[in-house]
Protein backbone atom coordinates (compact mmCIF):
# COMPACT_ATOMS: atom_id res chain seq x y z
CA UNK A 1 0.00 0.00 0.00
CA UNK A 2 1.27 3.47 -0.87
CA UNK A 3 2.18 5.55 2.16
CA UNK A 4 1.84 9.30 2.64
CA UNK A 5 -0.93 11.77 2.08
CA UNK A 6 -2.63 11.13 -1.24
CA UNK A 7 -2.80 13.85 -3.87
CA UNK A 8 -6.54 13.66 -4.28
CA UNK A 9 -7.44 13.97 -0.61
CA UNK A 10 -9.80 16.73 -1.74
CA UNK A 11 -12.10 13.97 -3.03
CA UNK A 12 -13.16 13.43 0.59
CA UNK A 13 -14.58 16.94 0.82
CA UNK A 14 -18.04 16.26 -0.66
CA UNK A 15 -18.45 13.15 1.49
CA UNK A 16 -17.33 14.93 4.64
CA UNK A 17 -19.51 17.93 3.79
CA UNK A 18 -22.57 15.68 3.51
CA UNK A 19 -21.75 13.96 6.78
CA UNK A 20 -21.17 17.32 8.48
CA UNK A 21 -24.37 18.95 7.23
CA UNK A 22 -26.75 15.99 7.36
CA UNK A 23 -25.33 13.97 10.24
CA UNK A 24 -23.33 16.08 12.68
CA UNK A 25 -25.34 19.28 12.29
CA UNK A 26 -28.68 17.52 12.92
CA UNK A 27 -27.13 15.87 15.97
CA UNK A 28 -25.95 19.28 17.16
CA UNK A 29 -29.47 20.70 16.67
CA UNK A 30 -30.84 17.72 18.58
CA UNK A 31 -28.40 18.26 21.45
CA UNK A 32 -29.08 22.00 21.55
CA UNK A 33 -32.85 21.57 21.68
CA UNK A 34 -32.60 18.90 24.34
CA UNK A 35 -30.87 21.44 26.59
CA UNK A 36 -33.22 24.39 26.08
CA UNK A 37 -36.55 25.13 27.74
CA UNK A 38 -37.90 27.97 25.66
CA UNK A 39 -34.90 30.28 25.58
CA UNK A 40 -33.51 29.14 28.90
CA UNK A 41 -30.51 26.81 28.99
CA UNK A 42 -31.18 23.94 31.35
CA UNK A 43 -28.14 21.79 30.64
CA UNK A 44 -28.49 18.13 31.43
CA UNK A 45 -31.71 18.45 33.40
CA UNK A 46 -33.77 16.28 31.04
CA UNK A 47 -31.06 13.65 30.99
CA UNK A 48 -31.02 13.50 34.77
CA UNK A 49 -34.82 13.30 34.79
CA UNK A 50 -34.66 10.17 32.63
CA UNK A 51 -33.10 8.30 35.52
CA UNK A 52 -36.32 8.65 37.51
CA UNK A 53 -38.76 8.66 34.59
CA UNK A 54 -40.78 5.45 34.76
CA UNK A 55 -41.80 5.54 31.07
CA UNK A 56 -38.24 6.00 29.87
CA UNK A 57 -36.85 3.34 32.18
CA UNK A 58 -39.57 0.96 31.05
CA UNK A 59 -38.79 1.67 27.38
CA UNK A 60 -35.10 1.24 28.05
CA UNK A 61 -35.48 -2.13 29.80
CA UNK A 62 -37.88 -3.32 27.07
CA UNK A 63 -35.37 -2.44 24.35
CA UNK A 64 -32.54 -3.95 26.34
CA UNK A 65 -34.45 -7.17 26.97
CA UNK A 66 -35.44 -7.58 23.33
CA UNK A 67 -31.94 -6.88 22.05
CA UNK A 68 -30.25 -9.12 24.61
CA UNK A 69 -32.58 -12.08 24.03
CA UNK A 70 -32.37 -11.70 20.22
CA UNK A 71 -28.58 -11.46 20.34
CA UNK A 72 -28.12 -14.46 22.64
CA UNK A 73 -30.55 -16.62 20.64
CA UNK A 74 -28.85 -15.58 17.40
CA UNK A 75 -25.38 -16.35 18.75
CA UNK A 76 -26.29 -19.83 20.02
CA UNK A 77 -28.21 -20.93 16.94
CA UNK A 78 -25.87 -19.13 14.55
CA UNK A 79 -22.82 -20.92 15.94
CA UNK A 80 -24.63 -24.26 15.98
CA UNK A 81 -25.64 -23.95 12.31
CA UNK A 82 -22.19 -22.68 11.35
CA UNK A 83 -20.71 -25.81 12.93
CA UNK A 84 -23.15 -27.93 10.94
CA UNK A 85 -22.26 -26.14 7.72
CA UNK A 86 -18.53 -26.55 8.20
CA UNK A 87 -16.52 -28.83 5.94
CA UNK A 88 -17.72 -30.39 2.73
CA UNK A 89 -20.83 -32.50 2.34
CA UNK A 90 -23.53 -33.20 -0.17
CA UNK A 91 -26.07 -30.39 -0.33
CA UNK A 92 -23.75 -27.77 1.09
CA UNK A 93 -24.41 -25.21 -1.63
CA UNK A 94 -28.17 -25.43 -1.21
CA UNK A 95 -27.88 -25.22 2.57
CA UNK A 96 -25.58 -22.22 2.33
CA UNK A 97 -27.91 -20.44 -0.05
CA UNK A 98 -30.93 -21.04 2.18
CA UNK A 99 -28.99 -20.02 5.26
CA UNK A 100 -27.83 -16.74 3.74
CA UNK A 101 -31.15 -15.84 2.23
CA UNK A 102 -32.71 -14.15 5.25
CA UNK A 103 -29.80 -11.72 5.63
CA UNK A 104 -30.84 -9.93 2.47
CA UNK A 105 -34.56 -9.79 3.25
CA UNK A 106 -35.49 -6.30 4.54
CA UNK A 107 -36.47 -6.24 8.19
CA UNK A 108 -39.94 -4.90 7.40
CA UNK A 109 -40.58 -7.89 5.12
CA UNK A 110 -39.29 -10.16 7.88
CA UNK A 111 -41.73 -8.63 10.34
CA UNK A 112 -44.52 -9.21 7.80
CA UNK A 113 -43.62 -12.89 7.60
CA UNK A 114 -43.80 -13.12 11.38
CA UNK A 115 -47.30 -11.63 11.28
CA UNK A 116 -48.40 -14.46 8.97
CA UNK A 117 -46.54 -16.99 11.08
CA UNK A 118 -47.41 -16.08 14.67
CA UNK A 119 -50.44 -13.82 14.35
CA UNK A 120 -53.60 -14.98 16.06
CA UNK A 121 -54.90 -16.35 12.73
CA UNK A 122 -51.42 -17.23 11.48
CA UNK A 123 -50.15 -20.61 10.40
CA UNK A 124 -48.95 -21.71 13.85
CA UNK A 125 -52.35 -20.92 15.28
CA UNK A 126 -53.98 -22.93 12.46
CA UNK A 127 -51.71 -25.88 13.19
CA UNK A 128 -52.55 -25.63 16.90
CA UNK A 129 -56.26 -25.71 16.01
CA UNK A 130 -55.87 -28.68 13.68
CA UNK A 131 -53.96 -30.53 16.38
CA UNK A 132 -56.78 -29.83 18.79
CA UNK A 133 -54.66 -27.77 21.20
CA UNK A 134 -56.94 -24.78 20.92
CA UNK A 135 -60.63 -24.62 20.08
CA UNK A 136 -60.73 -21.10 18.70
CA UNK A 137 -58.22 -18.56 17.39
CA UNK A 138 -58.89 -16.42 20.48
CA UNK A 139 -57.32 -19.19 22.60
CA UNK A 140 -54.03 -18.79 20.79
CA UNK A 141 -51.53 -16.95 23.01
CA UNK A 142 -50.77 -13.46 21.79
CA UNK A 143 -47.29 -13.46 20.33
CA UNK A 144 -47.38 -10.28 18.27
CA UNK A 145 -49.03 -6.91 18.94
CA UNK A 146 -48.45 -7.75 22.57
CA UNK A 147 -46.16 -6.81 25.44
CA UNK A 148 -44.53 -10.22 25.18
CA UNK A 149 -41.42 -9.84 23.02
CA UNK A 150 -41.71 -13.34 21.53
CA UNK A 151 -42.72 -12.36 17.99
CA UNK A 152 -40.15 -9.61 17.72
CA UNK A 153 -37.38 -11.90 18.97
CA UNK A 154 -38.38 -14.43 16.29
CA UNK A 155 -38.27 -11.71 13.61
CA UNK A 156 -34.85 -10.48 14.67
CA UNK A 157 -33.45 -13.98 15.10
CA UNK A 158 -34.57 -15.12 11.65
CA UNK A 159 -32.52 -12.28 10.21
CA UNK A 160 -29.57 -12.31 12.60
CA UNK A 161 -28.87 -16.05 13.05
CA UNK A 162 -27.46 -16.21 9.50
CA UNK A 163 -25.67 -12.89 10.00
CA UNK A 164 -23.71 -14.21 13.00
CA UNK A 165 -23.55 -17.71 11.52
CA UNK A 166 -21.91 -16.56 8.29
CA UNK A 167 -19.31 -14.50 10.19
CA UNK A 168 -18.49 -17.54 12.33
CA UNK A 169 -18.47 -19.88 9.34
CA UNK A 170 -15.95 -17.67 7.53
CA UNK A 171 -13.54 -18.20 10.45
CA UNK A 172 -14.35 -21.88 10.85
CA UNK A 173 -13.66 -22.64 7.18
CA UNK A 174 -10.14 -21.27 7.58
CA UNK A 175 -9.57 -22.89 10.98
CA UNK A 176 -7.63 -26.18 10.65
CA UNK A 177 -9.61 -29.22 11.77
CA UNK A 178 -6.36 -30.77 13.00
CA UNK A 179 -6.43 -28.81 16.26
CA UNK A 180 -9.73 -30.33 17.21
CA UNK A 181 -8.68 -33.78 16.01
CA UNK A 182 -5.54 -33.52 18.12
CA UNK A 183 -7.57 -32.56 21.15
CA UNK A 184 -10.00 -35.42 20.57
CA UNK A 185 -7.23 -37.97 20.07
CA UNK A 186 -5.71 -36.87 23.36
CA UNK A 187 -8.94 -38.02 24.97
CA UNK A 188 -10.64 -34.67 25.50
CA UNK A 189 -14.43 -34.83 25.27
CA UNK A 190 -16.47 -33.22 22.49
CA UNK A 191 -17.87 -30.41 24.62
CA UNK A 192 -14.53 -29.57 26.21
CA UNK A 193 -12.86 -29.57 22.80
CA UNK A 194 -15.50 -27.14 21.59
CA UNK A 195 -15.12 -24.80 24.55
CA UNK A 196 -11.33 -24.91 24.74
CA UNK A 197 -10.25 -25.25 21.12
CA UNK A 198 -12.99 -24.16 18.71
CA UNK A 199 -14.66 -21.42 20.70
CA UNK A 200 -11.55 -19.29 21.34
CA UNK A 201 -11.00 -19.15 17.58
CA UNK A 202 -14.49 -17.90 16.78
CA UNK A 203 -14.98 -15.52 19.72
CA UNK A 204 -13.77 -12.41 17.81
CA UNK A 205 -16.18 -13.12 14.96
CA UNK A 206 -19.02 -13.65 17.43
CA UNK A 207 -18.15 -10.46 19.31
CA UNK A 208 -18.07 -8.18 16.29
CA UNK A 209 -21.13 -9.56 14.52
CA UNK A 210 -23.24 -9.77 17.67
CA UNK A 211 -22.45 -6.17 18.50
CA UNK A 212 -23.96 -5.09 15.19
CA UNK A 213 -26.96 -7.29 15.89
CA UNK A 214 -27.39 -5.81 19.35
CA UNK A 215 -27.08 -2.24 18.13
CA UNK A 216 -29.46 -2.77 15.23
CA UNK A 217 -32.15 -4.44 17.30
CA UNK A 218 -31.84 -1.74 19.97
CA UNK A 219 -32.13 1.16 17.57
CA UNK A 220 -34.69 -0.19 15.11
CA UNK A 221 -37.96 1.70 15.03
CA UNK A 222 -39.99 -0.17 12.41
CA UNK A 223 -40.00 -3.74 13.75
CA UNK A 224 -41.24 -2.89 17.29
CA UNK A 225 -43.94 -0.62 15.88
CA UNK A 226 -45.18 -3.53 13.75
CA UNK A 227 -44.85 -6.41 16.18
CA UNK A 228 -44.84 -5.03 19.70
CA UNK A 229 -47.59 -3.47 21.78
CA UNK A 230 -45.15 -1.79 24.13
CA UNK A 231 -42.77 1.15 24.20
CA UNK A 232 -39.12 0.80 23.21
CA UNK A 233 -36.58 3.64 23.16
CA UNK A 234 -36.99 4.29 19.40
CA UNK A 235 -40.81 4.27 19.60
CA UNK A 236 -40.59 6.52 22.67
CA UNK A 237 -38.53 9.04 20.70
CA UNK A 238 -41.00 8.88 17.83
CA UNK A 239 -44.06 9.26 20.03
CA UNK A 240 -42.67 12.12 22.07
CA UNK A 241 -41.78 13.97 18.90
CA UNK A 242 -45.41 13.82 17.79
CA UNK A 243 -46.77 14.66 21.24
CA UNK A 244 -48.15 18.09 20.36
CA UNK A 245 -49.93 18.68 23.66
CA UNK A 246 -46.93 18.50 25.94
CA UNK A 247 -44.38 21.33 25.47
CA UNK A 248 -41.81 19.02 27.03
CA UNK A 249 -42.60 16.28 24.47
CA UNK A 250 -40.28 17.19 21.63
CA UNK A 251 -37.29 18.29 23.75
CA UNK A 252 -37.57 15.06 25.75
CA UNK A 253 -37.60 13.12 22.49
CA UNK A 254 -34.49 15.00 21.41
CA UNK A 255 -32.78 14.15 24.70
CA UNK A 256 -33.68 10.47 24.33
CA UNK A 257 -32.31 10.56 20.77
CA UNK A 258 -28.98 11.88 22.08
CA UNK A 259 -28.90 9.17 24.76
CA UNK A 260 -29.50 6.50 22.12
CA UNK A 261 -26.84 8.00 19.84
CA UNK A 262 -24.28 7.98 22.65
CA UNK A 263 -25.14 4.39 23.51
CA UNK A 264 -24.94 3.21 19.89
CA UNK A 265 -21.71 5.04 19.12
CA UNK A 266 -20.04 3.66 22.24
CA UNK A 267 -21.02 0.14 21.17
CA UNK A 268 -19.59 1.02 17.77
CA UNK A 269 -16.39 2.29 19.36
CA UNK A 270 -15.90 -1.03 21.17
CA UNK A 271 -16.65 -2.82 17.90
CA UNK A 272 -14.11 -0.78 15.93
CA UNK A 273 -11.52 -1.28 18.65
CA UNK A 274 -12.07 -5.04 18.56
CA UNK A 275 -11.94 -5.26 14.76
CA UNK A 276 -8.85 -3.08 14.44
CA UNK A 277 -7.11 -5.20 17.05
CA UNK A 278 -8.13 -8.32 15.16
CA UNK A 279 -6.83 -6.87 11.91
CA UNK A 280 -3.43 -6.02 13.33
CA UNK A 281 -3.02 -9.48 14.84
Amino acid sequence: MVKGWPKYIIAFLPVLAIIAVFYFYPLYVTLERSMLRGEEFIGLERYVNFLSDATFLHAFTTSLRISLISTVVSIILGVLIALALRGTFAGKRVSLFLFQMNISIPHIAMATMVVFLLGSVGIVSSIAYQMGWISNWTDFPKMIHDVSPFGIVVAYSLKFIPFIGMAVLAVLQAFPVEYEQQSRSLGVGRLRTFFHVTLPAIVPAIATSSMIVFAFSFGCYEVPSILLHDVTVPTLIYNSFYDFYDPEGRPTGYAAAIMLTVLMTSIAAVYLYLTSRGRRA
Partner: protein
Amino acid sequence: MNWYPRMMILIAMAACVIIPLTVLMGWALSVDWSYPDLAPKGMSLDGLIEYITRSDTVRAIKNSVMLSLIVTAGSLILAYMPSKILGTRDFKGKTFLRIIILLPALTPGICVVFGMIPVFIRLGIYRQYISIVLAQITFTLPYMILTLSSVFENYDENYERQSSCLGVGKTVTFVHVIIPKLKSGLAVGCMYTFMVSWSMYLLTYELAPSNLETMTTTIMPMLVSSTVTYPILAATAVVFFLPSLLFLIISTQIIKSDNISTRGGL
Protein backbone atom coordinates in the same frame (compact mmCIF):
# COMPACT_ATOMS: atom_id res chain seq x y z
CA MET B 1 -19.89 -33.09 13.29
CA ASN B 2 -21.56 -36.43 12.67
CA TRP B 3 -23.93 -36.66 9.75
CA TYR B 4 -27.02 -37.25 11.87
CA PRO B 5 -26.95 -34.12 14.08
CA ARG B 6 -25.72 -32.12 11.10
CA MET B 7 -28.64 -33.28 9.00
CA MET B 8 -31.14 -32.53 11.76
CA ILE B 9 -29.76 -29.02 12.30
CA LEU B 10 -29.73 -28.23 8.60
CA ILE B 11 -33.24 -29.58 8.08
CA ALA B 12 -34.48 -27.44 10.98
CA MET B 13 -32.65 -24.44 9.54
CA ALA B 14 -34.12 -25.01 6.08
CA ALA B 15 -37.60 -25.35 7.58
CA CYS B 16 -37.19 -22.06 9.47
CA VAL B 17 -36.27 -20.31 6.23
CA ILE B 18 -38.71 -22.01 3.89
CA ILE B 19 -41.86 -22.11 6.03
CA PRO B 20 -42.25 -18.32 6.57
CA LEU B 21 -41.56 -17.73 2.87
CA THR B 22 -44.01 -20.40 1.78
CA VAL B 23 -46.74 -19.05 4.05
CA LEU B 24 -46.19 -15.55 2.69
CA MET B 25 -46.21 -16.76 -0.92
CA GLY B 26 -49.26 -18.86 -0.11
CA TRP B 27 -51.15 -15.80 1.10
CA ALA B 28 -50.03 -13.75 -1.89
CA LEU B 29 -51.32 -16.42 -4.30
CA SER B 30 -54.24 -17.61 -2.21
CA VAL B 31 -57.82 -17.83 -3.31
CA ASP B 32 -59.99 -17.98 -0.21
CA TRP B 33 -57.73 -19.00 2.67
CA SER B 34 -59.71 -18.97 5.86
CA TYR B 35 -58.77 -19.90 9.39
CA PRO B 36 -58.00 -22.65 10.43
CA ASP B 37 -57.14 -24.21 7.07
CA LEU B 38 -53.50 -25.14 6.65
CA ALA B 39 -53.53 -24.24 2.97
CA PRO B 40 -55.65 -21.98 0.78
CA LYS B 41 -58.62 -23.52 -1.07
CA GLY B 42 -57.03 -22.55 -4.36
CA MET B 43 -53.98 -20.85 -5.76
CA SER B 44 -53.89 -18.37 -8.58
CA LEU B 45 -51.58 -15.71 -9.91
CA ASP B 46 -54.54 -13.49 -10.83
CA GLY B 47 -54.73 -11.67 -7.50
CA LEU B 48 -51.02 -10.95 -7.41
CA ILE B 49 -50.98 -9.75 -11.02
CA GLU B 50 -54.08 -7.64 -10.44
CA TYR B 51 -52.39 -6.07 -7.41
CA ILE B 52 -49.06 -5.42 -9.12
CA THR B 53 -50.68 -3.80 -12.15
CA ARG B 54 -52.86 -1.48 -10.05
CA SER B 55 -51.96 2.14 -10.74
CA ASP B 56 -50.98 3.00 -7.14
CA THR B 57 -48.80 -0.10 -6.82
CA VAL B 58 -47.09 0.68 -10.12
CA ARG B 59 -46.53 4.23 -8.92
CA ALA B 60 -45.07 3.07 -5.59
CA ILE B 61 -42.73 0.60 -7.31
CA LYS B 62 -41.66 3.23 -9.83
CA ASN B 63 -41.04 5.83 -7.11
CA SER B 64 -39.05 3.38 -4.98
CA VAL B 65 -36.93 2.19 -7.90
CA MET B 66 -36.24 5.75 -9.08
CA LEU B 67 -35.36 7.01 -5.61
CA SER B 68 -33.07 4.06 -4.84
CA LEU B 69 -31.42 4.34 -8.27
CA ILE B 70 -30.71 8.05 -7.78
CA VAL B 71 -29.40 7.45 -4.27
CA THR B 72 -27.21 4.59 -5.49
CA ALA B 73 -25.81 6.62 -8.38
CA GLY B 74 -25.18 9.59 -6.09
CA SER B 75 -23.44 7.42 -3.50
CA LEU B 76 -21.34 5.77 -6.20
CA ILE B 77 -20.16 9.09 -7.63
CA LEU B 78 -19.40 10.53 -4.19
CA ALA B 79 -17.82 7.33 -2.85
CA TYR B 80 -15.63 6.38 -5.80
CA MET B 81 -12.51 8.49 -5.16
CA PRO B 82 -12.65 8.30 -1.34
CA SER B 83 -12.96 4.50 -1.54
CA LYS B 84 -10.07 4.30 -3.95
CA ILE B 85 -7.89 6.37 -1.62
CA LEU B 86 -8.95 4.40 1.45
CA GLY B 87 -8.35 1.12 -0.34
CA THR B 88 -5.02 1.85 -1.96
CA ARG B 89 -3.25 4.38 0.30
CA ASP B 90 -2.02 4.39 3.84
CA PHE B 91 -1.84 7.78 5.50
CA LYS B 92 -2.02 9.49 8.84
CA GLY B 93 -5.57 9.92 10.08
CA LYS B 94 -6.96 7.16 7.88
CA THR B 95 -8.56 5.28 10.77
CA PHE B 96 -10.12 8.52 12.02
CA LEU B 97 -11.49 9.28 8.56
CA ARG B 98 -12.90 5.77 8.30
CA ILE B 99 -14.67 6.12 11.64
CA ILE B 100 -16.19 9.49 10.68
CA ILE B 101 -17.48 8.00 7.43
CA LEU B 102 -18.83 4.93 9.24
CA LEU B 103 -20.72 6.85 11.94
CA PRO B 104 -24.02 7.45 10.07
CA ALA B 105 -24.40 3.72 9.46
CA LEU B 106 -23.86 2.98 13.13
CA THR B 107 -26.44 5.47 14.40
CA PRO B 108 -30.11 4.52 14.23
CA GLY B 109 -32.02 6.70 11.78
CA ILE B 110 -34.47 7.76 14.47
CA CYS B 111 -31.69 9.56 16.39
CA VAL B 112 -30.86 11.82 13.46
CA VAL B 113 -34.09 12.22 11.51
CA PHE B 114 -35.78 14.67 13.88
CA GLY B 115 -32.63 16.79 13.92
CA MET B 116 -32.59 16.68 10.12
CA ILE B 117 -36.05 18.22 9.85
CA PRO B 118 -35.01 21.66 11.25
CA VAL B 119 -31.85 21.55 9.12
CA PHE B 120 -33.84 20.92 5.94
CA ILE B 121 -36.34 23.62 6.93
CA ARG B 122 -33.46 26.08 7.39
CA LEU B 123 -32.08 25.11 3.97
CA GLY B 124 -35.54 25.60 2.52
CA ILE B 125 -35.78 22.11 1.06
CA TYR B 126 -37.91 20.33 3.67
CA ARG B 127 -40.13 17.66 2.09
CA GLN B 128 -38.69 18.18 -1.35
CA TYR B 129 -37.28 15.41 -3.50
CA ILE B 130 -33.71 16.61 -3.03
CA SER B 131 -34.02 16.41 0.76
CA ILE B 132 -34.88 12.71 0.79
CA VAL B 133 -32.11 11.98 -1.72
CA LEU B 134 -29.53 13.81 0.41
CA ALA B 135 -30.78 12.23 3.63
CA GLN B 136 -30.66 8.71 2.19
CA ILE B 137 -27.21 9.29 0.70
CA THR B 138 -25.92 10.30 4.14
CA PHE B 139 -26.88 6.86 5.43
CA THR B 140 -25.94 4.81 2.35
CA LEU B 141 -22.49 6.35 1.81
CA PRO B 142 -20.86 4.28 4.60
CA TYR B 143 -22.09 1.04 3.03
CA MET B 144 -20.90 2.06 -0.43
CA ILE B 145 -17.50 3.26 0.79
CA LEU B 146 -16.95 0.17 2.92
CA THR B 147 -17.73 -2.21 0.08
CA LEU B 148 -15.79 -0.27 -2.55
CA SER B 149 -12.71 0.32 -0.39
CA SER B 150 -12.43 -3.40 0.27
CA VAL B 151 -12.72 -3.94 -3.49
CA PHE B 152 -9.91 -1.45 -4.07
CA GLU B 153 -7.71 -3.23 -1.53
CA ASN B 154 -7.31 -6.04 -4.10
CA TYR B 155 -6.90 -3.65 -6.99
CA ASP B 156 -3.58 -3.00 -8.70
CA GLU B 157 -3.11 0.63 -9.71
CA ASN B 158 -0.27 -0.36 -12.02
CA TYR B 159 -2.79 -1.25 -14.72
CA GLU B 160 -3.74 2.42 -14.84
CA ARG B 161 -0.10 3.48 -15.00
CA GLN B 162 0.63 0.99 -17.72
CA SER B 163 -2.29 2.30 -19.70
CA SER B 164 -1.20 5.94 -19.38
CA CYS B 165 2.40 4.96 -20.22
CA LEU B 166 1.08 3.56 -23.46
CA GLY B 167 -0.43 6.94 -24.20
CA VAL B 168 -4.06 6.13 -23.48
CA GLY B 169 -6.18 9.06 -22.33
CA LYS B 170 -7.83 9.22 -18.91
CA THR B 171 -11.40 8.61 -20.10
CA VAL B 172 -10.46 5.67 -22.28
CA THR B 173 -8.40 4.18 -19.44
CA PHE B 174 -11.36 4.56 -17.12
CA VAL B 175 -13.79 2.90 -19.52
CA HIS B 176 -11.55 0.15 -20.86
CA VAL B 177 -9.17 -0.61 -17.98
CA ILE B 178 -10.58 0.46 -14.63
CA ILE B 179 -14.26 -0.36 -15.13
CA PRO B 180 -13.69 -3.92 -16.43
CA LYS B 181 -11.33 -4.61 -13.51
CA LEU B 182 -13.80 -3.36 -10.94
CA LYS B 183 -17.15 -4.16 -12.45
CA SER B 184 -18.19 -6.98 -10.15
CA GLY B 185 -17.10 -5.08 -7.03
CA LEU B 186 -18.98 -2.02 -8.22
CA ALA B 187 -22.02 -4.16 -8.94
CA VAL B 188 -22.05 -5.65 -5.44
CA GLY B 189 -21.56 -2.22 -3.84
CA CYS B 190 -24.38 -0.75 -5.89
CA MET B 191 -26.78 -3.58 -5.16
CA TYR B 192 -25.99 -3.37 -1.46
CA THR B 193 -26.58 0.39 -1.44
CA PHE B 194 -29.75 -0.04 -3.48
CA MET B 195 -31.11 -2.47 -0.90
CA VAL B 196 -30.27 -0.21 2.04
CA SER B 197 -32.08 2.66 0.34
CA TRP B 198 -34.94 0.40 -0.79
CA SER B 199 -35.75 -0.71 2.75
CA MET B 200 -35.55 2.72 4.45
CA TYR B 201 -38.90 3.68 5.92
CA LEU B 202 -38.50 6.29 8.62
CA LEU B 203 -36.34 8.72 6.64
CA THR B 204 -38.56 8.45 3.58
CA TYR B 205 -41.72 8.90 5.61
CA GLU B 206 -40.43 11.92 7.52
CA LEU B 207 -38.52 13.72 4.79
CA ALA B 208 -39.91 12.81 1.37
CA PRO B 209 -42.60 14.95 -0.29
CA SER B 210 -45.88 13.80 1.23
CA ASN B 211 -47.26 12.72 -2.15
CA LEU B 212 -44.28 10.46 -2.85
CA GLU B 213 -45.58 6.94 -2.18
CA THR B 214 -42.79 4.37 -2.04
CA MET B 215 -42.88 0.64 -1.26
CA THR B 216 -41.96 1.17 2.40
CA THR B 217 -44.46 3.97 2.95
CA THR B 218 -47.08 1.71 1.36
CA ILE B 219 -46.39 -1.39 3.42
CA MET B 220 -45.78 0.18 6.85
CA PRO B 221 -49.26 1.71 7.34
CA MET B 222 -50.76 -1.62 6.23
CA LEU B 223 -48.81 -3.41 8.94
CA VAL B 224 -49.31 -0.91 11.73
CA SER B 225 -53.02 -0.31 11.34
CA SER B 226 -53.89 -3.72 9.77
CA THR B 227 -56.54 -2.16 7.55
CA VAL B 228 -55.89 -4.41 4.57
CA THR B 229 -56.67 -8.03 3.85
CA TYR B 230 -53.96 -10.65 4.25
CA PRO B 231 -53.61 -11.40 0.49
CA ILE B 232 -52.95 -7.71 -0.30
CA LEU B 233 -50.47 -7.42 2.56
CA ALA B 234 -48.70 -10.59 1.40
CA ALA B 235 -48.59 -9.37 -2.20
CA THR B 236 -47.06 -6.07 -1.07
CA ALA B 237 -44.46 -7.90 1.01
CA VAL B 238 -43.58 -10.15 -1.95
CA VAL B 239 -43.05 -7.14 -4.23
CA PHE B 240 -41.07 -5.52 -1.42
CA PHE B 241 -38.56 -8.31 -0.87
CA LEU B 242 -38.25 -9.59 -4.45
CA PRO B 243 -35.33 -7.24 -5.29
CA SER B 244 -33.41 -8.52 -2.25
CA LEU B 245 -33.70 -12.13 -3.43
CA LEU B 246 -32.53 -11.09 -6.89
CA PHE B 247 -29.67 -9.24 -5.24
CA LEU B 248 -28.65 -12.30 -3.28
CA ILE B 249 -28.71 -14.58 -6.33
CA ILE B 250 -26.75 -12.17 -8.52
CA SER B 251 -24.20 -11.30 -5.86
CA THR B 252 -23.49 -14.92 -4.93
CA GLN B 253 -22.83 -15.57 -8.62
CA ILE B 254 -20.49 -12.57 -8.81
CA ILE B 255 -18.66 -13.43 -5.61
CA LYS B 256 -18.24 -17.03 -6.71
CA SER B 257 -16.83 -16.06 -10.09
CA ASP B 258 -14.60 -13.28 -8.81
CA ASN B 259 -13.68 -14.43 -5.36
CA ILE B 260 -13.96 -10.94 -3.92
CA SER B 261 -14.74 -10.16 -0.35
CA THR B 262 -17.63 -7.84 0.40
CA ARG B 263 -17.22 -7.86 4.15
CA GLY B 264 -15.08 -4.75 4.47
CA GLY B 265 -15.05 -3.38 7.97
CA LEU B 266 -18.65 -4.25 8.67
